[in-house]
């Protein structure tokens, strides 16, 4: 394992400290653990809390700030945080208007968030949650725990965050988050695995001419292993799967070409070049594009493509001001 770290056990703590030190005017770390909240708590708005395992940087701590999240909880690498940490985050950001948790669809995440929300409710905090499940890779999602939550989560943060910032009610913010979830789809692939610091070796081995299609964001193998092909052909395969899932034709979309952490920006731009040509040809109108590392798997090399169908409401919230370390608008 070759990593720029100190002790394996300190990775999460040092990472969060480093994040907060990069934006001390915006972020504050809770003493109780790897929890990041806004430096200046804003009252009178629904507070948004997200979280999950570490290893997805800049998610989720990088999205704390004006127009997006109020708090983010980082578990151990690829491990959902514990209920007590989530509970501390909820308590720290809670306002009279309530708290909405944005949870990615993993058994562990849901169980831990549910327990935390129960604890918060016992304390009289108004709290609810939504579950993001944008990954179309998983084949028979009826026979699994459903689709995974991946890069589309960032758009839930962005859009629900914008509405919350305007002072909407918990019910309204939850409704718009669910609207994003209903309209966002993602699929990803990898040409290299990543290494969990605690595991010390890669999650899988790929030959020089192999890739994994349908990966999630936790270093696990994808839904199939295939021969490596040109970037355009890979992007086409992902886009076919995404556009088969729900109808995008004639719609306006926001696009994320997301790097998995170790992918050079050069390659993401090359992929984006094809994505635009593909969508143009299909009659899908591109409203805006984000290219970069938004939801990663440590140092994995690969990418995912996310499409979100937009209407006027979503467009205006998508465009609203955001001022966070990882996303400014």
């Amino acid at each position: 394992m070759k990593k720029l770290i100190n002790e394996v056990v300190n990775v999460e703590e040092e990472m969060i400290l480093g994040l907060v030190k990069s934006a001390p005017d915006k972020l504050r770390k809770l003493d109780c653990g790897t929890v990041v909240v806004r430096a200046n708590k804003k009252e009178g708005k629904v507070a948004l809390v997200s979280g999950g395992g570490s290893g997805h940087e800049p998610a989720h701590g990088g999205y704390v700030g004006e127009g997006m999240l109020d708090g983010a909880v980082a578990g151990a690498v690829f491990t959902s945080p514990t209920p007590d940490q989530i509970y501390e985050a909820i308590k720290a950001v809670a306002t009279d208007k309530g708290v909405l948790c944005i949870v990615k669809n993993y058994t562990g995440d849901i169980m831990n968030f549910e327990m935390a929300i129960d604890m918060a409710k016992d304390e009289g905090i108004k709290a609810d949650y939504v579950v993001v499940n944008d990954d179309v890779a998983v084949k028979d999602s009826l026979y699994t725990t459903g689709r995974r939550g991946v890069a589309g989560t960032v758009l839930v943060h962005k859009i629900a965050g914008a509405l919350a910032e305007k002072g909407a009610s918990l019910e309204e913010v939850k409704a718009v988050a669910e609207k994003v979830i209903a309209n966002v789809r993602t699929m990803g692939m990898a040409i290299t695995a990543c290494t969990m610091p605690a595991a010390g070796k890669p999650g899988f081995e790929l030959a020089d001419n192999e890739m994994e299609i349908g990966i999630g964001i936790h270093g696990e193998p994808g839904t199939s292993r295939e021969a490596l092909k040109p970037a355009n052909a890979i992007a086409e395969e992902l886009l076919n799967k995404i556009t088969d899932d729900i109808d995008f034709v004639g719609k306006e979309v926001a696009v994320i070409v997301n790097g998995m952490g170790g992918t050079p920006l050069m390659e993401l731009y090359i992929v984006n070049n094809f994505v635009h040509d593909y969508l143009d040809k299909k009659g899908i109108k591109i409203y805006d594009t984000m290219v970069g590392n938004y939801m990663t798997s440590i140092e994995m090399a690969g990418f995912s493509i996310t499409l979100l169908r937009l209407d006027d409401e979503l467009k205006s919230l998508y465009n609203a001001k955001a001022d966070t370390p990882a996303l400014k608008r």
Partner: protein
Amino acid sequence: MIDILKAIAAKIDEEKDYLTELDNEIADGDHGVNMAKGFDAVVAKLDAMAGKDIGSILKTTGMTLVSTVGGSAGPLYGTAFMKAGAKLAGKNEMDGKDLVDALEAAIGGIQMRGKATTGEKTMLDALCPAFDALKEGIEAGEDLKDALAKAVKAAEDGVEYTKTIKATKGRASYIGDRSIGHQDPGATSAFYMLETLLANI
């Protein structure tokens, strides 16, 4: 009970890399590390629990696991120990019937949280057959050690069985048929706990 939990902690620590390796093959490779971290935290609390009743000890164990393990195993095992503790509240000894009740409550807790059933390639594939064997033995009048030995054997078979099936719950379900042929890490850690219980009861 304190000694048993210490023995379990030692076993989990010993098998940490193996459990992580199993989890790496079909999912995210954190099961061993997280379980070991949780049981380390449990051990740190055990000495202060000397003299407490079994129920309290198990409850504290469960709460500690919930607040240190994270992932799926944290809430699942945590709830299991808490439920078992609730069942054994006030007891200082544990007979066959108590163990049956405790295991039943533990499994109930896991099912309440995880909404899984047997055959989905989870810890339940070790725990449920073990429970059935234990219950049958105890109800047939066998002594605790004999019945538990059969339960441990059933759990071991259950672990073997997980190799033959596809995961439909937990992270391993995302890779679909590719999970077949691999042993479930959670079933394996559940088997270790039962095996260690038998060796130390």
